């Protein structure tokens, strides 16, 4: 697979390490009331869609940026990639 790195252009997916659903950007507040239930959901539950999936890849053998890649899990087609940092600063993964 090739990942369209927003800064570096297309890069072989082998340069990256995969983490999972971009919802991991949305870490709950650990000091809030009911944090344990919110964390149980955050840590363990996934939508796991068959279709478009927003997911985190780390350019470990590259520029060490975390990307949010939008990819179809039924065809592996990649629809876009952004810096995770930008996504988070804009309010996190939807």
């Amino acid at each position: 697979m090739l990942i369209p790195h927003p800064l570096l252009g297309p890069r072989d997916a082998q340069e990256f390490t995969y983490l999972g659903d971009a919802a991991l950007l949305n870490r709950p507040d650990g000091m809030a009331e009911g944090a344990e239930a919110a964390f149980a959901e955050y840590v363990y539950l996934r939508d796991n869609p068959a279709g478009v999936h927003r997911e985190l890849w780390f350019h470990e053998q590259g520029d060490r940026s975390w990307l949010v890649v939008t990819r179809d899990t039924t065809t592996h087609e990649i629809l876009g990639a952004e810096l995770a940092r930008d996504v988070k600063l804009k309010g996190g993964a939807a």
Partner: protein
Amino acid sequence: MHFSGLRVIREALTGHKGWKPLWRNPEPQPAYDYIIVGGGGHGLATAYYLAKTFGRARIAVLEKSWLGSGNIGRNTTIIRSNYLLPGNEPFYEFSMKLWEGLEQEFNFNAMVSQRGILNLCHTDAQRDAFRRRGNAMLLAGADAELLDREQVRAMAPFLNFDNARFPIKGGLLQRRAGTARHDGVAWGYARGADMRGVDLIQNCEVTGFRIDGGRISGVETTRGYIAAGKVGVAVAGSSSRVMAMAGMRLPIESHVLQAFVSEGLKPTIPGVITFGAGHFYVSQSDKGGLVFGGDIDGYNSYAQRGNLPVIEDVAEGGMALMPMIGRARLLRVWGGIMDMSMDGSPIIDRTPVEGLYLNAGWCYGGFKATPASGYAFAHLLATGRPHETAGAYRLDRFARGYVIDEKGVGAQPNLH
């Protein structure tokens, strides 16, 4: 019809005219007491034990494609009970004991072959971990032997002892482990279930659940609505998709695992061998093909196919471990979709919807679990209580902190 050597001879002499269909092709009834969603290994085994062991009737298995088209039809056929944790080991040992009597039990030769599994270790720390695991196996009533380097050499002299990046220091051997003919397992259970009145309905995809007041009343399918008393879902690979129709999110990601078979070769590899310094495992089938595999590709996928980097990585592991296979050729690569759970262990449990039960999260260990999974799921469906060996496979273990993490890698499915 009872299968036997005599029967085979009689049919051979009379032109094979007497063989009957292995199972019927029934039309779905309007209602069943039990509906099993998924005609893979676990679903078929569940239906079989529900009918045979628990004496239940009015059972249907709904399969969206052909029977056995799930991961039972695409795996590396290994059976073993060499687990560490007390939540797992008794369950897998129960499964192993079921394997040992399976063919006589369902009158079908699934070629259960106990030629052993040898896990190689390459560091002292790995050997320590094997000692802990081997002892855990013995304590649970399984068998295990810790081998030193020379004992490994005696069993598998063709391994790379002399030019390896990671030296072979020994191994953990389970002699009762081995392989089984995967399709045969599905067919044996299917035939056994059909003989006991279970309706096996192919080309019937479940498209929705009908839930009234928190209780399941039936399933919508491509062949119409079917009412049900209880519904058990056993659709590993698609669990998230199917359970989403009941409004549930699961602690599961779907990943592709590639598996490999070489062209047929005269048998040379004794049992199953696993490489401890790379991810590679291999056995040789009764037809002569080397059946092998390695890591999952590592990204969420429903595509049932993988990519070159993992193919190369698996071949590198294989060549590093046993350089004499280099001139053999890869015949076929295929991909199966795994329910990778958040702790690497499965789920056999009721759900928040009354009457709806879930069997899921088998990662890439589902094949060996087929008998016990079916038995335990049938037990749960029939009695409402978990089977004694499957009590740890609860859905709420994640929120409550009772995870069963054999590899100790935490809530990241692609690392299990």
